[in-house]
């Protein structure tokens, strides 16, 4: 008589903002070194990705694979899953993202990260900077303690946002396969945050929209399909 689609978004929110943000406090204090290490990994990857020319591509991909693995196991499984029964259905997406990064890292010609000076690069850099630097401080505006900061590499939201930025900074015909999981996470998380009356939900959705737009623009302009030069390949 009743079916799953009878439920509204509000029905499926099962926890309070108080409990949700305490997850990050507990994780940040319990796994301080790992959390800090994941953030440093993100900073290293962003430093490599923003250089002129194409260097350290495999390193970037391996670092992103590692932070997604830690985020999936550390945050989703250890902390988020006990308060959200939907997490087991979301975890395969994180596992898939790790595998995809690993596959790209292992390919003879991995994705090429680098500054191209087009709109996608500006958006990509903005997303990475926002995820790594600004996102942890958003809680302060909302009145939360810094110890509850959501950090890139451990918390899923900034990790997904930053990953969108990395993908926009990359070149390669198949880079789009790295987008569905972080895009889907941003949409799901935006729904959760919206129901919790958290204004950041709007930014998550804006990131989705602008990433899709830039991806389409790159496709239209041939950015992702243009063959790499010999010099680029040698790098």
């Amino acid at each position, binding site marked *: *008589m*009743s*079916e*799953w689609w*009878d*439920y*509204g978004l509000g*029905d499926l*929110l*099962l*926890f*309070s903002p*108080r*409990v949700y943000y*305490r*997850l990050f406090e*507990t994780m940040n204090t319990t796994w301080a070194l790992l959390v800090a290490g994941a953030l440093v990994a993100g900073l290293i990857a962003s430093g490599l990705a923003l250089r002129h020319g194409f260097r350290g591509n495999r390193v970037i991909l391996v670092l992103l694979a590692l932070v997604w693995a830690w985020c999936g196991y550390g945050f989703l499984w250890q*902390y988020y899953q*006990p*308060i*959200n*029964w939907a997490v087991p259905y979301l975890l395969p997406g994180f596992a898939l993202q790790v595998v995809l990064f690993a596959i790209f890292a292992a390919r003879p010609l991995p994705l090429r990260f680098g500054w191209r000076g087009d709109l996608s690069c500006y958006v990509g850099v903005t997303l990475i900077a926002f995820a790594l630097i600004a996102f942890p401080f958003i809680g302060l505006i909302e009145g939360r303690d810094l110890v509850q900061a959501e950090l890139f590499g451990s918390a899923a939201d900034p990790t997904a946002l930053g990953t969108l930025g990395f993908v926009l900074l990359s070149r390669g015909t198949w880079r789009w396969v790295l987008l569905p999981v972080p895009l889907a996470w941003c949409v799901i998380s935006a729904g959760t945050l919206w129901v919790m009356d958290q204004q950041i939900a709007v930014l998550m959705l804006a990131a989705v929209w602008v990433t899709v737009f830039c991806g389409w623009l790159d496709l239209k302009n041939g950015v992702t399909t243009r063959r790499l030069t010999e010099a680029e390949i040698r790098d």
Partner: protein
Amino acid sequence: MSDFDRRKFLKSAGAVAALGGLGVFGTGANRHAFAQTGAANDLPRIIQKTIPSSGETIPAVGLGSWITFNVGNDIELRDQCADVMSAFFDAGGRMIDSSPMYGSAQDVIGYGLDKLGARDRVFSTDKVWTAGDGAEQIAETSDRWKVAEFDLLQVHNLLGINENLPLLFRMKDAGQLRYVGVTTSHGRRTEDLIAVMKNERLDFVQVTYNPIDRKVEDYLLPLAYDRGIAVIVNRPFRGGSLTERLEGQPLPEFARDLEAKSWAQLILKYLISHPAVTCPIPATTKPAHAVENMAAASGLLPDDKMREQIAAVIGVLV
């Protein structure tokens, strides 16, 4: 009662409620009685409501666990929930309600019952919420609460009712369950619930009801009264948004006559005074609020006229 005229129904019942001490609703059998009985000597006398299908009485306010008890493995927060349960029991409460849908709430209740040694004090109320194997889910729920048998199990939001309701009746027949119920929330699927109420011998239904969401007053509550079905009320404060919006607003003068010291108590008295209502189940994270909610189930209750005044005042303010 052959027709369900709300005004007539409440007028007759409200006149009895206005007596405040001991009232009996309904005709013939003493199915809808309520009475005030003392808990500890220093506590207010808690109004007890009768479960029509058995004659058993339970305190007229229970404890919900949606959102508030879903705190995961955080020991500090689990202890806070146990403090809420402790305050609730000490104030004379018994019914605690949960669901497999509520994340870790069932585990947290089990933790609290362990910590307080309160399994003999709780009226355990949970739900089956699956389109799959209901028996397996109920077994998991029992493990989480660490109780062998539940007092009441309900089909949550009518999900899988064609399989789950017969399962619950079989459990009741086998002596593994005391009461069977069906729930809805947010006013959805009311027509479906009414159909089930007419066709099945339910002990309980659970519906959303508060001074703003009054749709159930028109037909469902009189039907429950007529068919001897106990009524649990969820979302009495609209998930907290109702009391938040009323915060800071002065209580109406007549609240003093009812010994209501807060909007939460006034709302609960509004609900408890409905003759068909057995037990609202407000959820909270604060022990003081659990005590305040229980205290609403004591003293005088509003009559029909006062109930309308409460609904009107709140309707204007929110």
